[in-house]
Structures are given as structure tokens and as C-alpha cells.
């Protein structure tokens, strides 16, 4: 690759020849407002806001299509650029403030901040009438009234192998809609929401509901943080990608009024225990192998809709947030003498499908949902910004003891993490020894399909780690021709696993996800307790469950699956 030197606003930058000027600017933290550019997706050049002017040229050009060549000099802030950029933003964001739910409810809105910064009023023009809002299960929704037809949601939906979203109509009626094919359904992964530049495709909001319970003196509100959120929330505040903010977040939660700061990671350790035990049993009986993970509700919906015939392969272990939420409403409530109906569990998650999962009636314990509300990382950032909480500069504080977790839980957020955690414990269960080395590197990384084998006792286990529906289809295809190709497979709906989840900060690119992953593994690496079975809180909880009658045990630790219809 040839290196060239270009100039942006009078300063020299090194670039690869042919690279877009916008990409050079992004890499060097030079702000050029843009909506339809995403470095993992194709260049559409449709928003026409990333304008620049070449030196000595009266014409403006889009920086996403202008290619770097030696000596190129551009300016991002000429009077003409400013005028045309603002006008196109007025056209794109007409009536944004009036129609966007965050703005309507007076919450912090990134898009509105951008508008203010560039002098865009948003009330200059009208919006054409379009089709109504569509809800994707209880997870996400798209809102044609603020859609800017940039096509990013459609492209990411295609890229991950679903093809649910599409653009429809021409002229000013061009807006996002869904595929009417009865054989194609959304899996609620929310990748579309992480790729929408204006929150027209977004999570179904739980902010207002959480605010309400925080004000209710009769409620005991628990917050529990997913493994991935702590390594990505900082991005919303300009913190270096991948820095672990667990303890600053604990302080922030307390400032927000949460009564207890627990952790989904504790739940992840429960899941590992239950799932590893099930794996060991299935291996011993040689039944329903390969076993599939089931902690990703997007993946589960994929299987239940597209391949219900494979449902018996799913582990029946509940997912981390449901395990810990359930633990807090049973074991902890009983120990503390609290009426569980007064407890509200709020999860902060990198995910939209966790909202869908939390809404399942089948997961209720004594008529109560283990998790009441799920906030995405982005929603958590909105709540912090509403309160003007400056997260990076808070004093750290410890999470509450009942949130204690192992390093095995910390890595759940990365693709391969669930597999590695389960292996550490399954190895221990089968051999009474610790896996050595404890870090199982072949299942780490961003590839869509990772394969590895591990020797446990006399048995050689064939492992698969899969991310996104696109690669899940490939592996399922492989299994159809060779059912013994694997013994245990981890499936995640999102690229890179939960850390690249649909609820994560925007932008979420492969480059950024890789850096977040490094952060997650660092947490594990620096911990003394690396395995779920070493977690004293989990041990106490499991001892509690052991004393319960069998049906109660089932209710708290296990779940079931069934074929799903479109939109179900």
C-alpha cells in the first residue's frame, strides 16, 4: 500500500492512497458530520453532509467518496461547505426534535446535540407522511418518521445474514420497512439499532420506566451490569475504548439512586455452572450433542424460527441476567427478609434482545419476572447525561458483595467467552483439575467461525464458536451433513459476541469491537478468581437451590424453548 500525505484544514496527515478523506478524518479525530458512512459497510454517499472543498476548487465534494492522493488539500469549514452542509442537515432532520422520542421526553439526544452544534434548527422543513412505527418483538423498533433512508440498517441486517429490513418506496416516501416474506423474520439482535445514525431504528426504550421505579420509595431497585457494558460505556464519554469502568459505574449507579449494585457477571458464573454440568451429563450420556449455548436470545430466536428441529441441542441453562435476577429475587430476598415483589431488577446490557428475553412469561419465578427492565449501554449513557454525571471523573467504588464474579464471567461478553468459561468449569468437573493453561486462546477473536479441540480426560472435545446468523447457517449446514462435527458450539447473534451487541455505543465498528474485546480479556487476566466454580456467592446460591424441591430448582435454573412464528 502506498502512503501519501494530504492536508486537512492546513494540517498534514498520512493516508493510504485511495482511502477516503472521511476515513482519514475519522481516524484522526477530525469531525466531519456524516450519517450514511460506516467503515464496515459499503459507501452509499447518500446523506451529502460530509462535504469538503478542495483547495482552489469552487465545487464541494463528499469526503466519503473523495480519495486520498499525494498533495491533496481540503478544507472542512469553508463558508460554502458550512452553508450546504447545514441545508442538507435541515432537509434530513426536518421535524427531528418533534418526532424523536428521546427529544420529546426531554432526554439527552446525540442527534439533537449534533444539530445544535451545526446550527440546524430542524423546523425549517416538513416531513412527508410515511408508514407507521414497527416494533420488532419487545426488543427494537423502527420509526419511519425520522428515518433518513441512509440504508445502514438494511446493509448490516443483510451482512449478518438476516435480510429482515429493507428500504421501500421512492422519492420522499423512501423509508425503512421490513421484509414481508413469511420465511424471513427479525431475530431482535438490534444490529440495525447500533448502525442507525439518528435513532430511527432503536431499542424499545426502558428509560422512563426505570426513572419511575427509581423515584418509587416502595421499590428496592437492583442494577446489574452485563460483562460488555463496563468495557464500552466509556466510549459515550470519550474514554479510551476498552477501559474497564466497573467501579466508576458503581459510583454512578449509586448517584442515580439504585439501591443495590449487583452484577450480571455473577449470573454468568451461575450459567457456567449449570451449563457445564449439563455438558458433562450430555457427554456422559452421549445425548443431544453437539450442545448449543442458549444465553444469546437473538441466536435462540434464530434457531426457534429458522431451525426449530435443532431446539433439543440448546442448553436448558437460563441466561446470565435471568440467573442472577432470579437469584436476587429468591435466595437474596429470602436471606435479607425482603418481599420479592418489592424488588425491581434492572439490567444494563449491550443488547436489545435481552429486553425481549426479559419479557418472557416462561421465565417467571413465583409469578415474578427475574428481570424487570433492560437498559442498553446507550440508554444508560442517556440517563447519565440527563443527570450530567461525568462518569470518567467519578471516584471508583466497589460493587456490592452479591455481585461478586470470576474472570470466567468477565469474558462472557466476547465471542468464545461462554465456551471458555464453560470449559474451565467442565474440565474441573470431569477431571477435578484446573484447565492448564487457564486461558483458552483458540476460541478468542473476531472470526465468524472458530474451531478448536480440547482434551478432557480421555475425551477429545470438538468445539465451535460462531458469531452472526450468517455463520450460524454455515455451521448448521455442516452439521446436517456431519452431525458429529462438533460436541459443543457457542452461538452469538452479533459480530464479536455481546461486546459487538446491538445495544452498544455508536459507532460500533469491527475495529472498535476488537479494542473492546481486548479490554474484556484484560479484566479476566488481572483477576485472581478465574473460574465460576470458585465464586463464593455462586456457591452460596447453589447451596440454597440444592435445598429446594425439584420443581423450584427447575424454575430457577432452567428454561425451555419452542418453535416461533414470525413476529413472535
Amino acid at each position, binding site marked *: 500500500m502506498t502512503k501519501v500525505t494530504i492536508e486537512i484544514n492546513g494540517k498534514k496527515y498520512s493516508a493510504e492512497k485511495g482511502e477516503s478523506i472521511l476515513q482519514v478524518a475519522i481516524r484522526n479525530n477530525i469531525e466531519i458530520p456524516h450519517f450514511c458512512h460506516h467503515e464496515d459497510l459499503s459507501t452509499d454517499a447518500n446523506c451529502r453532509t460530509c462535504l469538503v472543498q478542495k483547495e482552489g476548487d469552487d465545487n464541494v465534494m463528499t469526503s466519503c467518496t473523495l480519495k486520498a492522493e499525494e498533495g491533496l488539500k481540503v478544507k472542512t469549514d469553508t463558508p460554502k461547505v458550512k452553508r450546504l452542509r447545514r441545508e442538507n442537515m435541515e432537509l434530513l432532520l426536518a421535524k427531528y426534535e418533534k418526532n424523536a422520542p428521546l427529544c420529546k421526553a426531554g432526554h439527552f439526544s446525540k442527534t439533537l446535540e449534533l444539530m445544535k452544534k451545526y446550527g440546524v434548527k430542524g423546523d425549517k422543513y416538513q416531513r412527508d407522511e410515511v408508514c407507521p412505527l414497527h416494533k420488532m418483538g419487545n426488543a427494537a423498533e423502527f420509526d419511519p418518521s425520522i428515518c433518513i433512508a441512509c440504508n445502514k440498517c438494511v446493509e448490516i441486517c443483510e451482512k449478518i445474514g438476516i435480510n429482515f429490513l429493507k428500504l421501500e418506496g421512492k*422519492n420522499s*416516501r423512501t423509508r425503512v420497512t421490513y421484509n414481508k416474506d413469511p420465511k424471513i423474520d427479525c431475530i431482535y439482535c438490534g444490529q440495525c439499532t447500533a448502525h442507525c445514525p439518528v435513532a430511527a431504528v432503536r431499542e424499545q426504550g426502558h428509560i422512563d420506566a426505570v426513572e419511575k421505579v427509581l423515584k418509587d420509595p416502595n421499590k428496592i431497585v437492583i442494577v446489574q451490569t452485563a460483562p460488555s457494558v463496563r468495557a464500552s460505556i466509556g466510549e459515550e464519554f470519550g474514554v479510551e475504548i476498552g477501559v474497564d469502568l466497573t467501579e466508576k459505574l458503581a459510583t454512578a449507579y449509586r448517584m442515580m439512586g439504585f439501591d443495590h449494585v449487583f452484577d450480571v457477571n455473577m449470573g454468568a458464573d451461575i450459567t457456567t455452572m449449570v451449563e457445564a454440568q449439563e455438558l458433562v451429563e450430555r457427554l456422559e450420556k452421549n445425548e443431544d450433542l453437539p450442545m448449543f449455548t442458549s444465553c444469546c436470545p437473538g441466536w435462540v430466536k434464530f434457531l426457534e424460527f429458522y431451525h426449530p428441529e435443532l431446539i433439543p441441542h440448546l442448553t436448558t441453562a437460563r441466561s446470565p441476567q435471568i440467573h442472577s435476577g432470579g437469584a436476587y429475587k429468591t435466595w437474596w430476598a429470602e436471606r435479607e427478609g425482603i418481599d420479592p415483589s418489592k424488588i425491581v431488577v434492572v439490567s444494563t446490557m449491550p443488547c436489545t434482545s435481552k429486553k425481549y428475553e426479559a419479557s418472557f412469561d416462561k421465565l417467571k419465578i413465583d409469578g415474578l419476572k427475574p428481570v424487570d427492565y433492560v437498559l442498553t449501554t446507550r440508554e444508560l449513557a442517556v440517563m447519565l447525561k440527563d443527570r450530567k454525571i461525568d462518569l470518567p471523573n467519578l471516584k471508583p467504588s466497589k460493587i456490592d458483595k452479591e455481585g461478586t464474579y470470576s474472570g470466567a464471567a468477565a469474558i462472557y461478553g466476547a465471542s468464545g467467552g461462554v465456551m471458555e468459561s464453560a470449559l474451565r468449569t467442565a474440565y474441573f468437573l470431569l477431571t477435578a483439575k484446573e484447565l492448564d493453561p487457564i486461558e483458552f486462546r483458540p476460541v478468542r477473536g473476531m472470526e465468524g467461525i472458530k474451531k478448536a479441540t480440547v482434551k478432557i480426560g480421555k475425551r477429545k472435545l470438538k468445539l465451535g464458536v460462531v458469531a452472526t446468523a450468517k455463520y450460524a447457517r454455515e455451521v448448521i449446514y455442516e452439521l446436517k451433513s456431519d452431525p458429529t462435527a462438533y460436541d459443543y458450539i457457542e452461538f452469538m447473534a452479533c459480530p464479536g459476541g455481546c461486546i459487538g451487541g446491538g445495544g452498544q455505543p455508536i459507532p460500533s465498528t469491527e475495529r472498535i469491537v476488537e479494542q473492546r474485546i481486548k479490554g474484556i480479556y484484560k479484566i479476566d487476566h488481572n483477576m485472581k478468581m478465574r473460574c465460576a466454580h470458585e465464586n463464593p456467592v455462586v456457591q452460596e446460591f447453589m447451596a440454597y437451590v440444592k435445598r429446594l424441591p425439584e420443581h423450584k430448582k427447575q424454575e430457577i435454573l432452567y428454561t425451555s424453548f419452542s418453535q416461533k412464528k414470525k413476529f413472535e
Partner: protein
Amino acid sequence: MNILPKIKEADLVGRGGAGFPTYLKWEGIQKVKADKKYVICNASEGELGLFKDFYILQNHADRVFKGLQLAMDFIGTKKAFFNFNGDYYKKLKLQIDELVEEYEERGYQITIFREHPSYIGGEETALLNAIEGKRVEPRLKPPYPSDRGLFGQPTLIHNVETLYNVADVAEDKFEKKRFYCLSFPHKKGEVHHLPANWSIKKILEKTNNIPDFPYFVQIGGSASGLVLNSSQLDKQKMMGAGSIEIYKKSTDPRELLLKWFSFYDQESCGKCTPCREGTFQLRKMVEESKNIPWQKMKPILEVLEETSFCALGKSVPVPVYSFLKNVLKKKL
């Protein structure tokens, strides 16, 4: 017979409106190495005031097919697509199907693609998307169709009239003429085949069409074309697509703007911001005000001209500003 020097000699240019030299297109695609190449004949003709391609196909379809065959032979392919304005195909089906069959017997595979009548079909990469079953919107260039066009293969795209001319050039019959569509406020439109270098005035005179009422004209498409007053016509030759529309000088400016903006608002493919949203706003603001909101229109016209993705959006200000300057004699 190598036809390329003849095409160069004849100065053939694309008659879809862009006027790109035909020999350059042919030379370009000849150099590209590929297993498959395609030729596309474009009979989309979605611009207002244009009906010459229909006229040519109605009267000289055989010549167009001859030109299409010459193009296929030249780039060494047997495969072509014929993009038809759906309305045209309905009317011409019998004779066209017969020609397709005739060529098929001689080993040429000409696939008819029936396009929903649209203006964007005139944009050649949007046409490629349409044939491929994708969203009908222009592609980013490069790559140009001559490098990677239909289904990623080098593709030569020509308008109906261009291929008609190719057939004439091959037989040394080309007379440097072009087809002109004439539209009037008081009578049916006409098509004339006349020298390409005649002035607009001369065309109107020789066809006995100088109006006996005060008038102005729009040439090169009745949506995107230039508006001229009656004193500007003796020096002006045809540019863009071959059309002249006569308007009464008493035409209500608001009605005229609404005609243009409604057309664009309807025909915008919806891809880029200025065209998708801007043409809608223009139509709305003219519809909703008694007087023409010139000042409010200005910023939108500017982003259309300066930042539109394709030529469709960029052309919106052309009729508006030329009308303002040449007929209303105003400045913004």
C-alpha cells in the same frame, strides 16, 4: 469491417441526453478483458417532452436492432438487454417480439426488460440496478459500466437513437441529423428528423412552427431543459435530449414550477438527501403559497445543484434559473 473509425469520423454522440462521444465508449469497453459483456439498448425515455425514441421504435425498430447487433458484434457478445419503458412495450409488443425472435434465430439473445416508466431509468447505473432486481438508484462511479456494469460485467449502454445512428453509420448513410420532439400548448406534438446543427429558430421555421402568439421555449427535456425567450433562438442549437417545448408567454409561472417540481418529486429515486427531500419541499412550498417563494427555494436549489448524487438532482435548478433569467428577467 471495422466500424470504429467510421463512428469517430461521424462524430456520433449519445442521444440519451448526455452527448458522450460514442467511439470513446466503444474503445473503452473493447479494451476491457472479460468472459462476458453485455449491450443494453435503453428505451426508458422518462423525461417530459420526449417521445422520439417511441417514434423511432414505431417506425424504424429494425434499424435500432441492426445497430444493437453491430454493437454486440463489435464487443464480441451475443447477449443484450432491451430496456423498455413499460408503456412503450405494450404498444409495440408485436413488432418488437418479432424482431427479438428473428435475432434469436441468428444466435443473438436479446432480453426485453420492462421498466416501470421512470425518469431515473435514464441514468444508466440505475438502469443496471433495475435489471438486476435491485433498488432503482444510481451507483457510485467508478466503476463505470464499461468496466463493471450489468452483473459486474463490462456493459455498453446506448439510447435508441444512438443505435439507430450506428446502423446508418455502418452503411454510410448517416447524415448528421437528429430527432427533435416538438410540443405545443395548442396542438399535438411532432417528431422531426433534421440536421443536428440547426438553430432552434430554424427548426421552428422549417417545420412551420413559429407560434403566432407570444411564447418562450424549453429545450433538451421539458423538466431538466433550458428555458429561453423567443429572441434567443437563432443562435441556440439543441443541447441534451432532443426536445423543444413551446409555452405561451402568459403561462402562469407558478403552474410551470409546479409541473417541474411535481415531476421531480415524483421521479426522484430517493437515494440522496437534496433530491429526495429537497424536491418534495420545493413542490410543497410552491403548492402552499400564493406567490412563488423564490427566496425560500434558493437554498434548496443550491444544494440540489451542488450536492446531488446524480445528474437528475443536479439538473433541477436549470429550468428554474433559466426561466427566471430569460423569461421573467429577474435575479435571485
